[in-house]
């Protein structure tokens, strides 16, 4: 049913913009013209089992570190990225805490935090609001071992479900609904509006019959209704704007592993066409078909290598693939000129690569593998932060630096204690 596809295109990947930005929802061109520099962009990439530490982290620090095997695909981008040691969220829980990668807060602890467990990408998306058709686009694995990555979370504690394959992403980006589908969509807006009115009244009536904790709980429903109304407005506005032209024919979905290059490509195009300025890519272990690498053991099984050399080699092979594809993605961003500026897309896009798992074999979430590329920062080295307890630096400090560079006016993010020291802007 076309109308559902159309609606999902906006809502499912929509973070909840602040209500003010609804009023500020203006068409594409005037947003860009109003800015004196290229808009800031952000991409976050994560997997659920981490990287084999012994082959990931360099030994030396500074700009002249020796490339490790897992970083070697990025050799030609050496000046454009920094790898960080000993950053994490000081959290335990193994697989069950991987979802805190981009927030620093476990979902169970979200209620006690002022911004819940909102992730850095969603915080940035809030800032963009309705300036682009999609405040953010999340792609990758919906599920996986113990829920998979569950990488992106909104302010209200909702996990943003990812677009799972290239076909859906392509359709969201380029396929304008034909006239019939547009009519159906408009009709669906009308139906939703009508139902919303009815259920709002119903809720008010129910509220009068409740008291105490029950009444408070019903508040969630009222908030939900308001959110749906807001997004309905946005959907209606954007439905009148044409999508950019498709660069090639609609791709078919194959499998996560095989589709990684295509998904990266579509993310690059999404940024280039300003369809979105915030993208995330989550790769969960269980969707990873290891037969693609000619391996018969599963990814999760290999991440528990138990120090057996053959298993480590197999695990690293899977990880090398991820790193090579990431390097190609950076190539792409570098090859695209940023319109109205002298730089490339990589200069205006900060790219974070990492995981909420530090060591898959031991199930620890400390010493996470973190890479930051592009975005206008001064990069090109291996930065090692203190290891000793009491002196450790929160990973959220990096996120705060990223957000400030993105243009968000804030002094805190998650469990940050400030911006990341020694990380400068170019």
């Amino acid at each position, binding site marked *: *049913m076309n109308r*559902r596809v159309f*609606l999902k295109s906006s*809502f499912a990947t929509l973070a*909840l913009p602040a209500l003010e930005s609804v009023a500020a929802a203006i068409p594409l061109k005037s947003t860009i013209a109003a800015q004196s520099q290229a808009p800031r962009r952000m991409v976050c990439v994560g997997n659920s089992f981490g990287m084999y530490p012994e082959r990931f982290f360099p030994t030396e620090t500074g700009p002249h570190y020796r490339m490790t095997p897992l970083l070697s695909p990025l050799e030609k981008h050496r000046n454009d990225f920094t790898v960080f040691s000993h950053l994490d969220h*000081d959290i*335990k829980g193994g697989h069950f805490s991987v979802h805190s990668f981009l927030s620093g807060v476990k*979902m169970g602890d979200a209620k006690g935090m002022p911004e819940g467990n909102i992730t850095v990408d969603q915080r940035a998306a809030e800032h963009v609001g309705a300036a682009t058709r999609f405040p953010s686009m999340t792609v990758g694995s919906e599920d996986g*071992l*113990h*829920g998979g990555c569950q990488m992106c979370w*909104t302010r209200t504690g*909702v*996990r943003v*479900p990812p677009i799972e394959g290239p076909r859906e992403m392509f359709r969201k980006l380029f396929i304008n609904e034909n006239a019939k589908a547009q009519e159906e969509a408009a*009709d669906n807006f009308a*139906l*939703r509006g*009508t*139902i919303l009115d*009815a*259920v709002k009244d*119903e809720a008010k*009536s*129910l509220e009068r*019959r*409740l*008291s*105490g*904790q*029950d009444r408070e*709980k*019903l508040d*969630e*429903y009222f*908030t*939900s209704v*308001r*959110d*749906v109304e807001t*997004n309905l407005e946005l959907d209606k506005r954007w439905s009148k704007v044409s999508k950019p032209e498709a660069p090639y024919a609609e791709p*078919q*979905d194959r499998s996560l592993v095989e589709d990684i290059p295509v998904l990266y490509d579509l993310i690059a195009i999404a940024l280039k066409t300003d369809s979105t300025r915030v993208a995330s890519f989550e790769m969960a272990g*269980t969707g990873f078909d290891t*037969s693609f690498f000619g391996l*018969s*053991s*599963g990814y*999760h*099984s290999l991440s*528990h290598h*138990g*120090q*057996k050399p053959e298993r480590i080699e197999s695990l690293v092979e899977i990880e090398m693939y991820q790193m090579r594809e990431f390097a190609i993605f950076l190539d792409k961003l570098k090859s695209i000129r940023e319109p109205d500026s002298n730089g490339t897309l990589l200069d205006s896009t900060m790219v974070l690569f990492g995981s909420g798992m530090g*060591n898959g*074999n*031991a*199930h620890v979430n400390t010493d996470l593998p973190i890479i930051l590329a592009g975005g206008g920062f001064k990069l090109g080295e291996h930065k090692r932060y203190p290891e000793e*307890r*009491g002196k450790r630096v929160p990973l959220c400090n990096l996120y705060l630096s990223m957000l400030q560079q993105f243009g968000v006016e804030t002094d805190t993010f998650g469990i940050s204690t400030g911006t990341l020291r020694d990380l400068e802007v170019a």
Partner: protein
Amino acid sequence: MRIYHALLLSALCGSVSVAVSAKTDSIGEHPINAEAFDNHIRPFLKEYCIQCHGPEKQKGERQFDALNYPISDDNALIDYQDILDLLNLGDMPPEDEVQPDPIEKQTVVDWLTAAVADAYHSKEITGGETVLRRLNHREYFNTISDLFQMDMSMFDPTEAFPGERMVEHQDNIGDTLVTSGYLLDQYFDAADRIVEKALPFQEKPEPQSWNFAGDFEQQSELNKRHMVAHKQRYLNIYEAPNTIRRFGAYAPLMAFKEGVPVGGYYKIRTLAEAVNRFHNFNPKKVTNDPEEPMRMRIIPGHKRFGAMHLPQPYAPDLATFELSDNGPSWYTTETWLDQGFSPRFIFLNGSMDIRPAFREVTNLLLANPDPSIPPEELEEDFMAVAIKHGVIPHIRIHEVEISGPYYEEWPTPTWKTIVGKGSFKPSQTRRIIEQFATRAYRRPVQKKEVNRLMAVVDARLDQGHSPFESMKDGLKAALCSPTFLYLEESPVAPEANQLSDYGIASRLSYFLWSSLPDEELLKLAKRNKLSNSTTLKTQVDRMLQDPRSDRFVSGFLDSWLTLRNLGDAPPDRKKFEAYYSDNLEEAMRTETELFTRNALNENLNIDNFIDSDFTFVNEALADLYGFEGIEGDGFQRIDLDDPRRGGLLGQASILTVTANGVDTSPVLRGVWLLENLLGTPPAPPPPDVEPLNPDIRGATTIRDQLAKHRATTACYECHRKIDPLGFALENFDPIGQWRTSYGDRVDIDASGELPSGESFQNVVEFKQALMNRKDAFARALTNKMLAYSLGRRIEIMDRPQIDELLAALEAEGNGLRDLVHLIVSSETFAKP
């Protein structure tokens, strides 16, 4: 001082447990109150801590001299936790300072542990009230199924709903279930799909038929081979479903990709045969078992899930056939297919990995070619040769005929339930809406409520839609209303402490059916009969008799025994092939469900969960357990001579869900046992404990690696309660198979000693020791079931009710069915 310490030790050994679900009000001699803090904690702090963390110095920015009990605020709680953590780690007092006596320190640690747990707990409680509870996804699914009386085997309206928040593994706790804008949008979507599926048209559609013979397309790597082998004349299935490579595992009708035009019953006739079942190939390479007839199953497929030759989310068994080896025969079935779905064929007991087999078959043939085969044909692609001449075992489908839709009843049950016996007339809209709302809202509806829904109908009419479509939109609005989505468990009068009869009806039906109350329950509620204990008893019996109560069994086991996690950590395919080839995941789940269902039906003593002399198995599970003489897919009850099995701890589902698919962890299993069977979850580990980096190269066993738990006093205090329970189960591998050594090298030692001093050599003796704790088990089970029935956490004020339930249960013989009855007739069940 000496005597005091000795007394304390003995009290600690037996009873130190921090149950999250019930408040501990004393630790040995020291209750958790201000007096105990002043007399025992404050002096400890003064002697060992305040010097550096007090008014004069605040090392590490920490100051403890103002600490008190009760814990005044969150910052004080953080301080308590801090002190506790560092004492546990042994990091404080610093090495070069005076150390406290170990027993004295342990007393303080235990007291602080209990105080902290209480503080966290009291932040969560809802005062013994079920907070406005929305239907969880499971309940929503069942409610839609019952409301619309339609086939749900390939339709899940909750498929895109965000995951639920659990509390202690329970998925129906009111105050934790969240509603969000995203979910509300999903509800709109779902309502749309549901109503469109339920009432797609007004006129009975004319049946059509389709025939498929030849020109069968499958997956690209097979198509070219099939072209050579038989010009794509046949549809071939080689592999079992859910293999690694999925090579010829799902055979679709690509020419029928769009699927059936409307939902309905379709007659599917398949001309099929088993080819070369009695092969003589090397069984290690060509793994099709000649002993078993080839079994073909029909499942649905939809193009929206992507490739039709790969696994898809919906795979219900539409029909299963044992194929004849004597040439093609027609196999017929009539089955429901939703709009857009088309049949696909799978080979249940096919090969687990067919690719290597092609080479084997062809090489054998080439070594000894049959002279009647034209030599040039032997030079074709090796797979084509294996198929055409080899002959590699496979299921061969010659022709498929599909006709329909047919309807067993017309109008359909769904139509009759929602619209009525005849056709739709616009004048009936209000009646239809009102009737639907009454059932959906689970109580009589007010005129205003119907008016609101009719306002939607009228608006849609104004927007140019037909009366039929507008009526449907009114139904959709009801499904998005909070009155449908939330259980309004309102009291009989404002401020009263008694649920209304309609409230009881819903609570009962969501407890025992995970769905809305039926007509009989609503009638009784109308006549205010549901507060009567005899009526309640009769209803419970009626409801347990109804097949809908199977949802209670599976819903409760999902929560109580965490069985919803079964399948989350898929076991390694190489080491545990049987898990996949024998469909063990489904089988082990069925065993535990049947076991529980049986205990419910026959009101068996709940001790059977701890240990029993019977269980339920099919052939695959019997093989796993090493039992002979059981054949076939069907389940049967067997008596157990083998004391290792019996009770939950001998069941593969439990043993698999407490492992991670790769290896076993006594700590994980021990914690699971403590949490779910004994109701005494251990305190969480302190932060910064050096993690276990498993090393499976060497000869160290898991017991050796966990030796560190015994070396440190602080660790030992908790781990002496956890580890032994897990060791008892070490003879069971990650999928519940019995093993006597780790990898044929190191013998397994399943012995242990419980904190009480009881020791055991193996799981059989361990289960005997558990029998001595059956009171704890009964309490844990009762807590869980009561929580499940109420949709809220069990709290301090519930303790007297639980005590009463347990006493009554014991008096009646500890029967599982009796427990259900006792819960329903309890005072608490009738409270809002």
